[in-house]
């Protein structure tokens, strides 16, 4: 290997559950500032891919972030290196406020934190972190609300804000727009673009085709765990394999 490559790169990533191959030989790249869409029918292995990349599922092949290999690292170490994710089901800490959900991601504890808690002085830096993260997803007035009291759409957005807190070099979004109405969804597309514009690459999984095809620079289509297409969205709409596997009909009619 020559230059350390910026961004996320997987090479021949494969996940097996027993005899079932959930992800087969996926080589995918997300450059900094790029938005890549990962689409495919239910059960195609999209979430499995995110789980494998973030270290929640064992896989073969290799995962690399900004030239550093992540293979064998546990999830929290990957997060510390800037690989952040959201969950399809939200997975917020329901017993913490929105602000605390974000703060805990920015300062995840540890021995040093224990020392600071006991002997250090309180600082106000946390507030700024929370403010920035909530601004990035366009949420206001919820910082003091318990996460479990939010609507599903809000929970998804807090999940994104939580993923942006601290170091974020690559953001994996697992169905972030489910639960948003179509206006909110458009707004959310804008926010994804502006997040990417600030540096981190974004991998976006969603069922909302207009969102994915509208916002992404590149889409990758999975079927039965195998990538069957990787390229610009405009090409994906008309690619016969994609249409047959996933869309069932040319994209124009779906969009209409």
């Amino acid at each position: 290997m020559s230059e350390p490559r910026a961004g996320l790169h997987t090479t021949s990533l494969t996940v097996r559950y027993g005899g079932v191959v959930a992800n087969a030989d996926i080589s995918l790249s997300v450059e900094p500032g790029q938005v890549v869409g990962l689409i495919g029918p239910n059960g195609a292995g999209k979430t499995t891919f995110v789980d494998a990349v973030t270290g929640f599922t064992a896989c073969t092949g290799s995962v690399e972030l900004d030239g550093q290999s992540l293979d064998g690292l546990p999830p929290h170490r990957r997060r510390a290196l800037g690989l952040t994710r959201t969950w399809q089901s939200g997975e917020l800490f329901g017993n913490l406020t929105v602000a605390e959900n974000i703060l805990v991601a920015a300062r995840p504890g540890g021995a040093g934190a224990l020392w600071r808690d006991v002997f250090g002085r309180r600082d106000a830096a946390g507030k700024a972190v929370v403010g920035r993260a909530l601004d990035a997803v366009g949420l206001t007035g919820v910082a003091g609300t318990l996460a479990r009291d939010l609507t599903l759409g809000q929970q998804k957005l807090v999940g994104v804000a939580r993923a942006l807190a601290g170091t974020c070099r690559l953001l994996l979004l697992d169905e972030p727009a489910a639960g948003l109405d179509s206006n909110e969804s458009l707004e959310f597309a804008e926010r994804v673009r502006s997040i990417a514009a600030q540096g981190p690459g974004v991998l976006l999984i969603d069922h909302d085709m207009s969102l994915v095809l509208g916002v992404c620079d590149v889409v990758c289509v999975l079927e039965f765990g195998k990538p069957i297409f990787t390229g610009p969205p405009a090409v994906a709409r008309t690619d016969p394999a994609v249409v047959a596997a996933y869309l069932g009909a040319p994209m124009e009619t779906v969009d209409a």
Partner: protein
Amino acid sequence: MTTLLEFAALGLGLGAVYIGLSTGLLLVYRATGIINFAQGAMAMWGAYVFARVQDDGELVLPIGTIWFPEPPGTAVALLVGLANAVVLGVLAHYLVFRPVRRAPALAQVVVSIGLMVALQALAVIRFGPNSIQVESILPTGSIELLGATVPLRELTMVAIMIVLAAAVWAYLRLTASGRATRAASENERGAVLMGFSPDRLALIALVLASLVSTMAVVMGGSLTGLSPANYTLLVVPALAVVLIARLESIGLAVAGAIGLGIIQSELSLLATRSWWPQWAQSGLDQVLPFLLVMIILFAFGKRLPARGSLQSVRLPDVVVPRFVPWKAALLVGIAVACLVFFTPSYRFGLTTSLIIAILALSYVVITGYLGQISLAQSAFAGAAGFALSKLTTAWDVPFPIAIVVCATLAAALGMLVALPAFRIRGVQLAIVTIAAALAIERFVFDNYSLTPPTGNPIGRPTLFGIDFAIREGRNLARLEFSLMVLAILVLMVLLFVRIARGDTGRAFLAVRANERAAASVGIDVRRTKLIGFGLSAFIAGVAGCLIGYSRGELSAESFSVVVGLSVLAVAYLGGITSFGGALVAGVLGPLGLVYTALHSVFDMGNAYPLITGIGLILTAVLNPSGIAGETRHQVEWVKRKLRSGRAAPPAAADAAPAPVPAEKPRETTGV
């Protein structure tokens, strides 16, 4: 070889008791998803009833006694004893387990521990604390086998228990309701849809389990005698057997029970050999089950079946604590005034309360914040206490430093016990920690080569020329000591508040809420658990040192597993999620202020643990946020009402956000 065989045969008796207890545990678990820590205590009650009816025709009830005109003979006595077991099973179902069937694992563990504490206390009150002899219902005599003399009694016992276990197996396999029980343990919703009432299945299981276990203890009692402590805690090795059986297989449970009984018996033989190290003779019978539990959980922890249930209830609320100087000053002022003006006996009671509050605070850290069930806090406290004895007498380490060193030692022990928590959680962790606590108690605290029976004196604490010892001549509760304890409690609460409000407390709560999500936001879940166990063991260690200083001399009884469970009981009663709850727990705790007050009014004898046990069950069933939480809800309700002039019913489960952002009640699902 002959001796080996004879000891193996002796081990069959113990194995038979394990068959009874583990079959009962397994059956209850399959039907309810609850590990019944009171299985041994329940069985012991019926066995006691049997023994007394058989002995002198006295049918002892929880309250009152019925006399048979003359001792009615063994068969009738056995029937009466088993009838008691049935009634106990029914009562346990309706009053204890049914109300918490949808509760989080913590509440279920707590409720069965409450039952265990209450039954043991009741047995002490009704049957006395000492061991009684039980006349055997089994044939005496022996047979010759391979040159060894094998007693018939053990052989008959194990045969009877195998038959009973086979009957339970047949119930689960061959009857419709047994099959439904197995189905329900996989998927409760499915069983409901099939038209079975999980409730009735649970009732049948509890009664059957109580019967089988009681039968085992009735026979086992004739080998070893009955005492309230020994069969209550025999549930711990039985739990090891249940884990061997992967919480599923009766056949494996029977094999494991017999195997464990035989190995324990052989170990006791080996321990008498000259080459066996003297320091390793005590408590082997508890170390072995602990090692077994550890090995099994490490090997299979993830694959042990978890139960799919209909719904779960939220854990008690957590309130991020705030340090309010005037409130703190007021509380400290009241405490100082009480300590100054109280009579010595009340001063001692209040001082004990302050110490127990520290111990309860360690439960708040580990259970309330981190969501891990640890039943080993008394062992951490005891380890620090015994270390203190060595440090202050043998090495003359001065007073405040000695506490820090010993508490740090306890923290290290705590982090060691945290290792299994990497793999397991919930009730399985409760099993590991109670097995660890019992192993430490028997292997270390009761070990005369480590802690001499002549006593473990502790040096007098002095600082800057002031003597903080508790006794001076005839003064048995010196004010100096009490004030020192108060100062340390304040220090511990301050420490707790700083940590709970900081990054560490937030990380604890995140881990408690959702370990997977916690890892995904960068929290090192393992390290967080290590820190939590270390911190809570440190606080428990400080309490252990103060218990040491308050006694002047240590005994293992101060730190027994049962003491630890009683403190858990009051910690849960007070409210396991706030330091206010820990303070309430201190006031309620064994030998504390309330105890002293009640004791001076009327002689309670041994009723106090009974009251805490029942209180614990009631709290877990009715009001999971504890007394402190309930008071807070009432206060919030009054505040809201005053503000809006509009009434809303005060409820323990009231989850409405409080008006002050810093005081939000929180809760979460599932431990």
